[in-house]
């Protein structure tokens, strides 16, 4: 199970453009999906590690229709990521509706005028009907 220290480590040493280091990925076993936000990419092609999806321009639509809408009808399925705060707001609303909560959240970088704040977070099932 991911804990607060793991998330802090991710935020400190794994800029979103570089992906999630394998060692840290191992430390956060239990997370089913990592989410990145292309708005915070630092240049160069976006390389996605297995188990990672990108939000193009912060748009949650493909992640919802392609993955979470189905996955969050079932038990379990933790999701962690670093995204814009606006994308997290959308995910949080969708998560609430399916018995899940943002159980970890911290700001990595403030809003900078063109982009929203960068936030790292973990969404986990909390309702009895979806807890694994």
């Amino acid at each position, binding site marked *: 199970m991911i804990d607060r220290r793991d998330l802090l480590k991710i935020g400190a040493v794994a800029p979103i453009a570089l992906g999630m280091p394998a060692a840290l990925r191992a430390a956060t076993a239990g997370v089913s999906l990592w989410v990145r936000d292309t708005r915070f990419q630092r240049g160069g092609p976006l390389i996605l590690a297995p188990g990672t999806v990108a939000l193009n321009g912060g748009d*949650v639509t493909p992640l919802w229709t392609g993955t979470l809408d189905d996955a969050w009808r079932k038990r379990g399925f933790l999701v962690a990521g670093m995204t814009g705060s606006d994308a997290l707001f959308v995910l949080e609303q969708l998560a609430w509706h399916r018995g899940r909560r943002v159980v970890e959240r911290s700001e990595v970088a403030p809003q900078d005028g063109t982009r929203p704040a960068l936030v790292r977070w973990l969404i986990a099932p909390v309702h009895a*009907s979806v807890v694994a």
Partner: protein
Amino acid sequence: MAILPPDLSPADFAKALAELRQAIGTDWVFSSEDDLGPYRDSFSPVWDTDKERKASAAVAPADVAQVQAIVRIAGRYRIPLFPISTGKNFGYGGPSPNVTGSIVLDLKRLNQVLELDEARAFALVEPGVSYFDLYRAIEEKGLKLMIDCPDPGWGSPIGNSLERGIGYTMAAFRDHFGASCGMEVVLPNGELMRTGMGALPGAKTWQEYKYGFGPDPSGLFAQGNFGVVTKMGFRLYPRPDFYRTGLITVPRRRDFVKLVEICNYLNDAMLCGEIVYASPLAGLMAKPDFAALATRAGGPSDADMDAAASAAGLPSWQVDLQFFGPEATTASNWAYAKDRILAAIPGAKAIDGDAFPLPATPEQMENKTQPYRTSIRRHGSLGVPSLGIWKIVRDDGHLGFFPVLPRTGEAVFEMQRVMCDALREFDGLPSFFNATTAPLHWHSFAFQMVFAPSVRRNDPAHNAMTDRAMHKAVTVAAEHGWGDYRAAPIYQDAVADTYSFNNHALRRFHEQLKDAIDPEGIIAPGRGGIWPRRFRKP
């Protein structure tokens, strides 16, 4: 400190919650502060103040029988219920109730698409079905049907239509309540009622003829508080073969009057889909000199605006047109639109846009192939739910004031001028109303303009200004005959108060009905500005 329903002791509230748990299961009764977080209005300008409306609990029934049980328990304890479908409704109060201490009746578990009929083009759904769900059900069955969805599309057809929400396709479907056909309702006494042909046992036409016989009470359940809608039918658009777009520009400010006249015809004759107006001059608002002109007290002169447009090399207005149907029909309708507008308005220009068969490819959905700068929301225009629009939300959310105005260019100019002057004192807000502000043709046969000031969770002074601006906007608009179409609970009384013809005859009529049907205010007292006697001020 725990929030209690009105007039209820902690002991009796505990008994009520116990009965609710017995009726629907412990896991589906929420009463802790943590559990109730999702039922607050995330966009509230009065967040954490004594004006914020908060629930005392929430319940999520699994079926209609459980809804009836909840209503009856609430009736015994005189606890107000606040029904929600998926509870989005951001900008209009979200899932928060009108009365603090209400129990939110969260219908998310009633999430079945009960019927889809391609040949007769309708759907019958439950409240917890989202537009995404309905779209997916149609796609999975391979039906040639198109939905009309709001943007974002995470709300529910029932919730959105009961708020009189809108979409972006053809006029017959954009008015979501207007496109509804037949509903099932749990009344305040727990009884189940069906409207229209649904009241006739054995009828197979519930989603085809909405009226049945005698008065049709369906309208009472939209922005109303006379029952809990548990099923609702919707007319669907048979998916057209082809989609085509085109852009018209006109050079002078006053050309907008004739442009609107012709576009009204195109809309009302069902020749085109949503008409999307814009002013290319809006891009000049970042320049202080132009912004000063466009927000000048009393409004700028046509000559000054035309001179600014000419100097910038820009047309004063543009309109995105969209055509649906057989390919040849879309081509004919676009040719007809061009001919009429270009003949009527000297200097008008037309540019052909996209033209492709439906369904659109993913690339076409991106709306990046138009040979001009378009204002069309392609997902909405083609009835495909999306969450991408969320990026336009500024700060920590916004409110929504959408006054309804006549579909004339003159009315648009008047609202620009009046509302710009009225809201000038709130200089911390963007100039929503200026000489480049275009009307929205979302509703089938009326214009709206938008005032959507932002809220900031950690800036009470900004939120207080936003709150004052909302109240002033409602008041000033009403003085000119422009009424809001939808409002958050904290503004519903103010808006309802402006619909005051003949000493508030409409509100008194609603109150008489409420007193007869729901005297204790079990269903959403205060919603739509309708209060039962129990809650009315003497």
